[in-house]
């Protein structure tokens, strides 16, 4: 890896990259000067976005081409197998899966999102004060009521 960075440095690409950033910044200020009178965005304002987009796409295409063409290829039964966590594959992708997996996944998403709401509230706990606290208690209460319902329904029972 270090060798790669050294080669990068020796070839002067860091200067190219820095120049690219500077070019974008200059283009941006130049275009904003142009559009200052109208105080609205012109189509040309989006040029940096398109440059960014083409660079991102170009990176993907180039890496894909390079890795496919440079590396050595050795085929074997084991190597061509789909690789999933090291467990041998069973059946094809359309095998019916128990609905319980889906329910657990949905529940996971639900409680994941709940935590996302808790974080900003925890950070601003003092500022939000009593009102924020009541709202969070209501939110948690509704969520826990749903959780209790799910448990009573036996969704988490795996027999």
């Amino acid at each position: 890896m270090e060798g790669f960075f050294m080669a990068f440095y020796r070839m002067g690409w860091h200067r190219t990259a820095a120049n690219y950033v500077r070019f974008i910044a200059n283009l941006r200020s130049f275009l904003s000067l142009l559009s200052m009178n109208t105080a609205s965005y012109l189509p040309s304002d989006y040029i940096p976005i398109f440059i960014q987009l083409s660079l991102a796409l170009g990176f993907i295409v180039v890496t894909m081409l390079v890795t496919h063409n440079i590396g050595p290829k050795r085929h074997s039964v084991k190597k061509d197998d789909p690789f999933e966590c090291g467990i041998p594959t069973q059946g094809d992708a359309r095998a019916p899966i128990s609905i319980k997996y889906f329910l657990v996944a949905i529940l996971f998403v639900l409680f994941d999102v709940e935590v996302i709401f808790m974080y900003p509230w925890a950070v601003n706990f003092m500022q939000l004060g009593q009102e924020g606290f009541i709202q969070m208690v209501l939110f948690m209460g509704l969520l826990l009521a749903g959780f209790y319902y799910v448990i009573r329904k036996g969704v988490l029972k795996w027999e």
Partner: protein
Amino acid sequence: MTFQTYDCLQMLPIILLSLSGIALLFLGFQKSRALLLPATLLFLVIAFVANFLDWGKTYMYFRDMLLVNNLAMIFTGVVLLSTFMVVSLSGSLADDEDAQPAEYYAILLFSLVGAIMMIGFENLIMLFVGVEILSVAMYILTGSDKRNLRSNEAALKYFLMGAFATGILLFGIALLYGATGSFVLSGIGNYAHSATNAGGSMLLFYVGMFMLLIGMLFKVSAAPFHFWTPDVYDGAPSLFTAYMSTVVKTAGFAALLRILSVSFSGVYDFWWVAMAVVTVLTLLIGNITAVYQASFKRMMAYSSISHAGYLLIGLVGLSQASKPAIAFYSLAYSLSTIAAFGVLMLVARNRPLNAAVFGDQTTLARTDEHYDAFNGLARKNPLLGFVMAVSMLSLAGIPLTAGFWGKFMVFSAAADRGAVWLLVVAVLMSAVGIYYYFRVVIAMYFREGQTDTIRVAPFYRIVLIAATVLTLALGLLPNLFQGLI
């Protein structure tokens, strides 16, 4: 950010319905299912009363997110009344082994929260949240008949197409925000007024407006966006089809009325042509395709498309008069549709599908919902025949029923705008409508058929009679909402 008491205490229907939905979920853990139906009806009555506590006042709730005024309260009342009637027709769920009534009722109450948000939204975010709450609940209920292949198909179709339409709606909201810098209806309205006067490009605004309208027109099944309707209404259990074709439609039109009258009235000259074209298409496709249906339930699906067309006339002729007109039409349409589905459910339940007649379709549909099922119904069951006949007359718009005045009011709203050619199309299509609505009446009264006396539970009977009496009473009291809004 102060904690204002009126902020959280007055938006009562939404809070009550959410809490009672949760309560119903837990009520479902009891062994007996007998308590579920009365509890749901009780919750609905409480929400109905709470809804009208603010009568005569105009409030803005949750930091300008939701508006409550008389119009919103009337629409909410119509939606709650329709739900009350649909739920009271669901007595047979308690005996159905496959059904899970507690969850169904809870989902219905949750979806009402979405409907109320769609009725009173002041912020486009509330519109989106309301549409999603209502739609997701509908996707679930459409597929609730899990062993019926057609129900599954309907749910998947509805979900895929509905999700796509919601995406378009959201894109429209984003573009409107980009153009106006506001999610608030009045803010967008101010921009529309000032920008049209100032001149200059409004491309972003117009594209956003039309994408939002397309998303909403999909939800109310207007013509170029109606393809999901027949399959979904046909495949869903009749009970939930009745709910979908009344509550969802009422809420959708309340939302359209609100956004068109508050936000887009300044650019009326720009959108009315597009809406008029959609209206004509909806009327033509809905009515003419309904003629060719052999299944009564499928005919009701196309009938609901055609009624979306009549309601759209009220929007094309947007004025102060179209507000009570659309509210009245929604009420009239809901009453007759629920009564018709009520009779259909009774008839279909007593007639398992005959394999010899319909061949391999037996695996798809469990009950017979064709016109033939109604043959000779009125002879042994005069009450059911009369209820069905009145609701068909009302849907066809025959005088002395509520449906006539509903049509009359939306037509006169459009006539004030001078859209006479639109009315010509609408009246012609009403004449077509008479043909397919009367097919049921003819089958019931003039055809021979083997129908036994159908046993009707007392409460079921009361609701059917109430819907019929209300339909006839509204036919004599057309000025119900006139002075209130």
